[in-house]
């Protein structure tokens, strides 16, 4: 890097003492290097060395606008958590949100303004020159076409750009690769409004998702997942019910994994299915439909189940059953999106699903217009296509791009860029668009800047800098624009001015300063918006005629879907996200093509064989991953990879699935992500870096599933899975063991009473989203090891999500169960006695201590661990400049100073976030109080982040603790209990609603 960015300098900027992440240093040979202490010049009043400060801000990794709390130690943000005050994510955060830190400290960030020189290379320049040039170029281009492309901007920054563009005679378009145009268009068709309503998953009693991946990439994943689990999770007791969840789509996505029933409809026919269900409901009068629904009757008749069943690929009986269940539940919610809404007839599919909601009486109940999501800010592909045409036609003199990377998502756009005279990028990442730009004005990272977001009506989320810029050479794009526009003040002033308006409406009598401070503390202002009613629009009936797919299911239909972690590729340069196994395929660092086993047999391919997919628009070479989670003759490929620039982790990796997509917008103005392809097998083979071992658990008791009816019959105190816990012949040994425990409790540090830290994990809630995995990476300084080492299964993920399939054979329906597997902190831990140096041992509070600095690395503990949750440092991942360096400068600044960075040759594993436990204990001790269960429940990073609240932590010895209550739940079981390891983690069996006709 040109800028000599080192830790010392960083600390100096902030005036920080001590700090730095603790590292298990070198080989312990030779004298310790002399350490320097750098005092503050002026002690900041909100920072105490060694004590974390929390700042509320807003996540900008996607458009959902989740509230964030950034944990700041010695001036650097070290962990992101959900803001509990935010009504969007209620304190929870997804993997992408967690990984925001890696964007902040990304080693490939552009450190200062760059200008393309005479030699065609980008060279450093000064901000004064750069802004002067920008202002001049924009002034010169007046009337010749000025276009500002932004991302999904819902706040003041977007307003500022609009103002500027109005002033200079340009225009702004927003570009999102997955802008969900069909959703808006479908709503317009059905209800005459393009607004995107609020979907109340929590209140739903029956959920049908027509391809909407609402737990990963669709609208507001964390919010929806949290709400979904409220509805879908099984509570307890006889009267307890759960919302049944049906997933419709050609491919079982992460969101589909939780489904009680998967309907693998042919791509593009989801709308037909919805209409057929609506037909059943209307014709049988199964629900109290609104009065105007009756006029749909005649048109619906054409969509009776028996007429469309063959086209959908689902038999009529099933359709009828689904319709009955949906109507009978009295709280149905159907959502359309994802793959379904991205087909060429996406808008009509959405309209059809709207009709289903409407006739079932869901609109106004579970589908609430009013607190609408601000999806209109996402722009549309039609706008981009038009811009592309203008560019190619030489009608754009100056193009400015901020927060979007169209050159990656659209190959034709990248070509057309060449025709633009002057291209300005505000990207701080060296992405494809920035690489093609003439002037790069690196923006601050969202965590370093002032801004705001209005993700949905009534929610004003505020974004504040949580730390000084990592790279002082970067500048807030807002500030740069204000200067270029010749305006005074900073963007913060602009933002505050904008917020005076919010203050006027929601100030509640407080002064602006008070209001502002409170908003900063809470991360924004949150208000309730009343719902409004909508009526079926005139386009609804017309839309029904177009619901059928405009294409026949060919030899192979490619379905391009957004990668849950990398999304459209914006996450590709974050090693946490690259190394995060895709929740469905469990493949890391690479793209893949999902192929059904039957189809794979026909094509003669095995896992890892590279196939050439050729659509009319382009071609990609993708390695095959054979899976039952995709419909036969459908090949599903994720976006996210295939960058040609963007940084060391992203560039040159795998393929760019956008290449398959047509460049023309569809009827809805969106992009078509379902295309017919020709598939050719190539001679290439890729060893997929997958973390999947065996996808079937063969009844080994790792996951347990209860049908709803059985779960409802459970009585407290009866543990259905505990039969094998202590066989009769082991009673004697049991007593001896108990005796030994009493004896030990009087010895040394073990004397006295101690808590027994424990966890309860409800598989009914776990969706497999893997937010916990990334949260763990962030909290515990886990190294990312790269593709080559993942192939050798050397990933360090202390908590991993195991995704097992059940059924799917002999006509049974396929189900997936996901379970987080982490150290079980066994009471009778097999790992402990085999360690020759007591590096693994039992703490008085019931943890399996792992003392890194004592570990000599015999790895015996891991061999003896039946859960295989111990991970070894094969290399020195912290070695600066090393081949396997996990935290290249300045990425090491995100290291948690409370957790030792492990050196090579040391075993590590989940500690139940012992640093947090000790922190809480210290806190309580200083205040002379006892630890309260409420502050412990979501203490570990995984539990804290989990969007479904599936993980609960606490003291098992406290009879009133939530974890104790959950552990005593009759659904509770211990994994491999037969080994008498006495784990501290109780899993609660997953409960599934009946999927067959037994409803």
């Amino acid at each position, binding site marked *: 890097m040109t800028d000599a960015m080192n830790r010392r300098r960083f600390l100096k900027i902030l*005036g920080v*003492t*001590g700090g730095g*992440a*603790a*590292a*298990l*240093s070198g080989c312990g040979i030779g004298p*310790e290097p*002399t*350490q*320097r*202490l*750098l*005092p*503050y*010049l*002026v*002690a900041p009043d909100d920072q*105490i*060395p*060694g*004590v974390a400060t929390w700042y509320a801000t807003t996540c900008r990794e996607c458009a959902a606008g989740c509230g964030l709390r950034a944990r700041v130690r010695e001036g650097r943000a070290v962990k992101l958590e959900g803001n509990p005050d935010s009504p969007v994510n209620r304190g929870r955060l997804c993997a992408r949100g967690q990984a925001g830190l890696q964007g902040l400290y990304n080693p490939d960030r552009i450190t200062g303004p760059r200008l393309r020189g005479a030699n065609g290379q980008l060279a450093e320049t000064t901000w004064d020159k750069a802004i002067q040039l920008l202002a001049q170029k924009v002034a010169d281009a007046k009337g010749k076409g000025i276009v500002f492309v932004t991302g999904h901007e819902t706040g003041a920054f977007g307003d500022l750009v609009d103002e500027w563009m109005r002033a200079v005679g340009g225009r702004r378009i927003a570009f999102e690769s997955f802008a969900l145009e069909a959703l808006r268009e479908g709503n317009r068709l059905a209800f005459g409004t393009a607004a995107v309503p609020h979907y109340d998953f929590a209140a739903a009693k029956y959920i049908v998702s027509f391809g909407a991946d609402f737990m990963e990439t669709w609208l507001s994943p964390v919010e929806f997942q949290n709400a979904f689990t409220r509805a879908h999770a099984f509570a307890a007791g006889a009267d307890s019910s759960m919302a049944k969840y049906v997933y419709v789509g050609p491919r079982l996505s992460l969101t589909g994994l939780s489904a009680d029933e998967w309907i693998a409809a042919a791509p593009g026919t989801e709308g037909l299915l919805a209409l057929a269900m609506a037909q059943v409901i209307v014709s049988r009068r199964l629900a109290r439909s609104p009065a105007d629904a009756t006029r749909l009757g005649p048109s619906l008749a054409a969509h009776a189940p028996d007429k469309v069943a063959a086209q959908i690929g689902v038999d009529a009986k099933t359709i009828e059953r689904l319709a009955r269940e949906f109507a009978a539940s009295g709280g149905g919610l159907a959502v359309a999106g994802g793959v379904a809404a991205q087909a060429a007839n996406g808008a009509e599919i959405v309209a059809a699903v709207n009709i289903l909601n409407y006739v079932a009486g869901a609109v106004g109940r579970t589908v609430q217009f009013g607190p609408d999501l601000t999806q209109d800010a996402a722009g549309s592909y039609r706008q981009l296509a038009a811009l592309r045409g203008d560019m190619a036609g030489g009608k754009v003199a100056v193009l400015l791009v901020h927060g979007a990377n169209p050159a990656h998502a659209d190959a034709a756009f990248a070509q057309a860029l060449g025709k633009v005279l002057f291209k300005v990028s505000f990207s701080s990442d060296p992405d494809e668009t920035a690489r093609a730009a003439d002037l790069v004005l690196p923006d601050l990272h969202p965590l370093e800047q002032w801004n705001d977001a209005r993700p949905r009506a009534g929610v004003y989320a505020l974004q504040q800098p949580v730390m000084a810029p990592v790279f002082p050479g970067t500048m807030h794009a807002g500030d740069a624009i204000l200067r270029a526009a010749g305006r005074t003040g900073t963007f913060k002033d602009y933002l505050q001015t904008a917020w005076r308006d919010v203050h006027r409406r929601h100030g509640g009598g407080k002064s602006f300063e008070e209001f502002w401070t409170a908003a900063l503390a809470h991360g924004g202002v949150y208000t309730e918006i009343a719902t409004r009613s909508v009526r079926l629009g005139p386009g609804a009936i017309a839309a029904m005629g177009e619901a059928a797919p405009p294409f026949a299911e060919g030899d192979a239909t490619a379905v391009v879907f957004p990668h849950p972690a990398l999304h459209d590729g914006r996450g590709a340069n974050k090693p946490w996200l690259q190394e995060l196994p895709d929740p469905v395929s469990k493949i890391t660092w690479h793209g893949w093509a999902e192929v059904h086993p039957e189809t794979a047999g026909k094509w003669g391919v095995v896992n890892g064989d590279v196939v050439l997919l050729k659509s009319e628009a382009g071609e990609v070479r993708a390695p095959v991953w054979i899976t039952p989670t995709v419909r036969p003759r459908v090949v599903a490929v994720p976006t996210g990879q295939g960058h040609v620039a963007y940084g060391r982790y992203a560039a040159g990796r795998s393929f760019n699935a956008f290449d398959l997509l047509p460049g023309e917008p569809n009827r809805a103005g969106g992009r078509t992500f379902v295309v017919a392809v020709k598939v050719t097998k190539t001679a290439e083979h890729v060893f997929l870096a997958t973390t999947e071992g065996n996808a079937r658990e063969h009844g080994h008791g790792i996951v347990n599933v209860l049908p709803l009816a059985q779960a409802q019959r459970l009585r407290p105190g009866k543990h259905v899975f505990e039969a094998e816990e202590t066989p009769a012949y082991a009673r004697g040994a049991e007593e001896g063991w108990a005796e030994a425990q009493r004896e030990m409790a009087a010895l*040394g*540090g073990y004397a006295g009473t101690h808590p027994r830290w424990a966890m309860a994990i409800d598989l009914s809630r776990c969706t497999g989203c893997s937010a916990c995995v990334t949260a763990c990476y962030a909290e515990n300084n886990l190294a990312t090891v790269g593709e080559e080492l993942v192939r050798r299964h050397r990933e360090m993920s202390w908590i991993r999500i195991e995704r097992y399939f059940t059924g799917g054979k002999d006509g049974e329906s396929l189900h997936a169960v996901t379970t987080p597997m982490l150290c079980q902190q066994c009471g009778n831990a097999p790992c402990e006695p085999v360690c020759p140096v*007591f590096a693994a*041992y039992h*703490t*008085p*509070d019931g*943890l399996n*201590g792992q*003392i*890194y*600095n*004592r570990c000599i690395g015999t790895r015996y503990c891991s061999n003896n661990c039946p859960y295989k949750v111990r991970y070894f440092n094969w290399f020195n991942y912290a070695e600066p400049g090393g081949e396997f360096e996990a935290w290249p400068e300045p990425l090491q600044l995100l290291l948690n100073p*409370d*957790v*030792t*960075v492990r050196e090579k040759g040391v075993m590590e594993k989940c*500690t139940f976030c*012992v*640093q947090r436990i*000790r922190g809480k204990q*210290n806190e309580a*001790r*200083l205040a002379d109080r006892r630890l309260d269960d409420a502050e412990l429940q979501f203490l570990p990073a995984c539990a804290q982040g989990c969007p479904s609240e599936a993980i609960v932590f606490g003291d098992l010895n406290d009879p009133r603790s939530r974890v104790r209550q959950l552990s005593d739940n009759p659904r509770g079981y211990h994994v491999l209990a037969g080994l008498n390891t006495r784990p501290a983690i109780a899993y609660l069996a997953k409960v599934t609603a009946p999927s067959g006709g037994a409803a």
Partner: protein
Amino acid sequence: MTKGEWCMWGGGIAVLLLARPVAAQGGPAAPGFRAPVLSQSDTGKLKGPRQPIFFRHDIHAGQDRIPCMYCHYSAAISSEPGIPSVQTCIGCHQIINGTTDSHRAEITKIRSAWRDRSPPEWIRVYAVPDFVHFPHMRHIKVLGTDAASCANCHGEVAKQPRIYQVATLKMGWCVRCHVQRKVTQDCTACHF
């Protein structure tokens, strides 16, 4: 240390011999302890690393009886003791000029650090390896905040013209005290 600095030191010594302690000029008189007057040859013999500024704990903490917590403000609430900011120094030394040339020379250094906004880089004396998490606040909670408590580990700082490492800070040293006082001996109390 450059030649010029040596000269400066040499000049300071003569004045130092005649100097009266700062505390004697007013404020609460310090009963008992009076910081020694140090000659040039004495400073060479002092234990501990040479610091960028010859900050005398024996004058500040011993003679002037400034409480430890005045400067090391976060020791009772944080794992870090808190190295005082330059502002803390300037708070007093805006007014206090020092009585001898050598004192004045040192005080000038901190003033120029403040002016140039370049805080002095102190040489760390008490350090534990990175895999040890030592919570200062827990120890102060039990031992108290007075100088005698701090002396448990840091020795009589009030009598040390230059700070040097008194305890070994090795694990056995920690453990012995923990065993004596019957407090936790759990490994994960410090190592995680």
